[in-house]
């Protein structure tokens, strides 16, 4: 899956939660107060189901989830790691 495809899917998911549909790809979702704390786990579940990945202890880094770009890179990297295993 290309990064663009991942990004589109993530945007589609996030747009459900945020009124402003034009969120910049590098906007900090959590710092800007755009989402609530429940969203954090909903995002984890979405990533796991949509991309067939397991988000675990080692992945708990704010840098992995803070923006659309960050989430896209995180999924791309996880995907790559699982393919090379």
């Amino acid at each position, binding site marked *: 899956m290309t990064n663009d495809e991942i990004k589109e899917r993530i945007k589609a998911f996030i747009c*459900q939660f945020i009124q402003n549909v034009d969120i910049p790809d590098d906007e900090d979702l959590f710092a800007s107060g755009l989402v*609530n*704390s*429940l969203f*954090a*786990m*909903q995002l984890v579940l979405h990533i*796991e189901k949509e991309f067939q990945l397991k988000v*675990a202890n080692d992945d*708990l880094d704010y840098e992995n989830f803070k923006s659309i770009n960050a989430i896209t890179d995180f999924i791309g990297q996880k995907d790559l790691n699982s393919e090379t295993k």
Partner: protein
Amino acid sequence: MDLGLTPEQIKSRKRFSDFVDEYIAPVADQNDRDEETPVELIKKLGEQGFLGAFIPEEYGGKGMDMVTAGLLCEEIGRGSASLLSLLTINGMVSQAILKWGTRAQKEHWLPGLATAEKVAAFGVTEPDIGSDAKSVETTAELSGNSYILNGRKKWISYGQVADLFLILAQCDGKPTTFLIERDTPGFSTTPITGLLGFRSAMLAEVQIEGCRVPEENLVGRPGFGFSHVTNVALDHGRYCVGWGCLGLAEACLQASLSYTSERKQFGTNLRGHQLIQEMIADMITNIKATRLLCYHAAYLKETGDPGMIMETSIMKYFASRMVNKIANDAVQIHGAHGCGSEYSVQRYLRDAKIMEIIEGSNQMQQIIIAKSGYMNFRLEKRKK
């Protein structure tokens, strides 16, 4: 669409039901009066593998499917809401470790929690912090390769007997979760008695005074203690409570059906009076509606659907409101008998009230459910 149970699930439910009828229901009122759960009963739950219902087999649990585990919560809730809370909190801690713990933490803690060799408690609530959980005042400071924790927790179910506590604290202002063992120097508990409901759930206040906790007991990462670790636990807690409300409501219904079939007034059984029939009809209908919500939440959980968080919240909210109405009517039907200690319905009513408060008060559920409604409304409008 098949909403029926599989033959295996029916068999499991019978086993749970038989256990409750033999070991839990007959002693539930006495345990309520004694404000205690006998250790032998906790051990029996462990021997049956009930405390490991949600823990995978590779960690010593039973790895039940979500419907079967829900049926277990229902049956235990039918026998004793207090005892259900043991299953709930043990499960909440187990799920937090299972999802966000390290491999070593899972291997070290889960087998014991699955068999009741260790009992877990969940420490978020504090004397001054309830719904605003991410603002807990307990602190954790890094000191070498340990953390030093200070603070107080309150209303901790089974805090009097738990061996292991999952504690939410602020670490440099970031919500963070830690596992603390009872025998940690500086750690102590004080029983809380005289509660309205959950009287045999052995609640305690917890004092954490300079407890040194090794860094390998940190669950998740600093800053993720509320949003990820606590929320996994609370979602699980709501799931157990929702199913437990179903069982408690069933107990109210059975008690009411039995009482109205025997009690005579104005020359006829109470069951012959239409105002009684109205209450019975509402009980039956609301129980059926709750069951469907429970099945739906189970399906979403089984498939890992992100919608499960919201549907579990809706299910818990509906179930806890439903059981309060039903328990209230059950006492009403029993009249003065329902207020006395000879009948269990007064315990059911007291326990039902607690269901509206624990694992996120109903007001917190209302806020998130309403927000979700507006979100869906906006989405539908955008599609058109």
